[in-house]
């Protein structure tokens, strides 16, 4: 279970990197569109196509941010109850909390643009907490492996 826990945590961290890349791609597309004489207005925004070449970036950011990462974070918390690692539940809960905050911020940016500042910073917090969770699971697995080797060695010694 520790392996699964660590795997999920790493995927969450990687997905945040995908998010950063996707939104940069999307806004690159917007700027490219405007530079070519295109106009971005509410009509275009709602009809789709504001991102020009980078339109896929908006799509990825939406699907991964509002769908994939929250589901992974919920799965991480569920798995944490079966992962025998100290602090697994705590870090999974922190990760999920940050993800919930991140999604809420994301949906509120249109109305309150300044929240974008927190949205960007909080993305790093999600990465840090997901990596912390992953490392914690790895440490715990290694510690158990070392203990098992030591016990085996002791048993061998006794047998000898």
């Amino acid at each position, binding site marked *: 279970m520790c392996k699964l826990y660590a795997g999920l945590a790493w995927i969450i961290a990687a997905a945040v990197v995908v998010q950063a890349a996707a939104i940069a791609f999307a806004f690159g597309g917007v700027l490219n569109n405007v530079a070519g004489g295109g106009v971005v207005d*509410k009509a275009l925004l709602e009809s789709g196509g504001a991102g020009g070449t980078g339109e896929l970036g908006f799509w990825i950011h939406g699907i991964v941010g509002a769908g994939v990462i929250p589901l992974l974070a919920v799965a991480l918390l569920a798995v944490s109850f*079966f992962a025998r690692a100290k602090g697994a539940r705590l870090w999974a809960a922190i990760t999920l909390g940050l993800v919930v905050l991140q999604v809420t911020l994301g*949906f509120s940016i249109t109305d309150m643009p300044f929240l974008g500042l927190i949205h960007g910073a909080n993305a790093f917090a999600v990465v840090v907490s997901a990596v912390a969770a992953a490392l914690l699971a790895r440490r715990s697995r290694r510690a158990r492996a070392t203990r098992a080797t030591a016990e085996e060695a002791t048993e061998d010694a006794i047998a000898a």
Partner: protein
Amino acid sequence: MPSRRDLVRCAVVGVAVATALGAGALAWSSTLLGEYSVMDMGSSDHGHAGHGEPVSAGASPTGASGTLTATGDVSVTSLAADPDRPADVRVELVARQQLVEVPGGRSVDGYTLNGTSPGPEIRARQGDLVEATFVNESVAAGATLHWHGIDVPNAADGVAGITQDAVPVGGRHVYRFEATDAGTYWYHSHQVSHEQVKGGLLGAIVIDPAAPPEVAADVEVTALLHVYGGQHTLNGRVGDEQVAASAGETVRVRVINSDPGTAAVWSASPFRVLATDGHEVDAPTPVDGQRLLIPAGGRADVAVQAPPRGAVRLHVGGARSIEIGEPGTSAARTPQPAQTLDLLAYGDPTPLGFDASSPDRTYDYVIGRRFGVIDGRPGNFWTINGRLFPDVPMFHVREGDVVAMRIVNDSGEVHPMHLHGHHIAVLSRDGVAASGSPWIVDSLDVHPGESYEIAFVADNPGIWSDHCHTLPHAVDGLIAHVMYEGVTTPFTINGDAGNQPE
């Protein structure tokens, strides 16, 4: 060998997971709508305490043949224009699902009417009876025509699953209505509307006044805005237009926003707003250094005076503009003003024509947003009065009622709220009473945090959609209905006819 404690733990976890999955599946399946009728929809809401007895029922001003009685129910299909009256304007509109040629741009997959998109502009004179025969030649999902902004009798409203079945391929449907109110309107499909409107199943309809308007125009031009596959068009073309006008002549520009988002109109020269959503503004003053915002689905008639020399440029929507004046001359583009014209205080106040101070029914339409599941589809959906579709309110009215509604936007995005079959008068915004010419609309932008008080007279019996015209928002639950007492519909949504109005 696992310990007893481990076994117990595994069993408990197994039971918990199975229960959670079972409960989840049950909860999910309970959101599946299947075939349903709007008649069964929503929480029963009959409005807050009214004042006095409603006025007795009678024939609607649009000439509907159906009448209401206290006991006998009337089907939406019988709420139609006088069948014996011959039509003054006849038009046949043939819909096809095909590649739409966009002059000046690239072709896109979409829909045409009589081979083009936008479809032909329909022109009628106030008081005319319009008869439009709609033929679906190849629109696979079926299609309808809704007469956006015209207070048609309910049978002609064109909402699939409420007032008719979607017209299947090879089918036809006849729409008949009296063009009671002069003004600028448009028509579009109300079957899978978020797709079909976007794809161009739409066109303009202009009703010329029987008597000359307050501001007479020397030249008239329609400016229908639509985005086809990311390309901003003006009357279907990717490009600006030139309108020839002699010095001092007044040009009436009928701007139609068929897009799902707000459109801005501005110019370096002063212009006047003659009408909003087909209703004339009383004593419109020159607008200088401000922009006019037209909600999605909304229209505005704007008057521009041709300059003594050269041309003036009227920007319509973010990307397109119209140059008005001497042929062959041009006017520079001008940046969009940051300040918006406030229609709440524009023009001279005149009586509304009804008493909105003591409404018979008072309703709330509070828009919010939350995560949930609609029809088995998880998402971050719009809520009405805190509830998710289909558990949204049904606004029950009786013919003759004066209905007041408080529209509040507690979400983070603007919503262009569109009521079918009626025009609403804006009474106040955020507690500030309207002080200009009566602001009469059928599409009203409600921005985040805003609260509007509006009122309308229930004078057109039927079942009428009251939804957001950023059409994907309607798909995501931002739709409710105004239901007249004693009116029923035989049509259903999601049934064999494949009706999906949004």
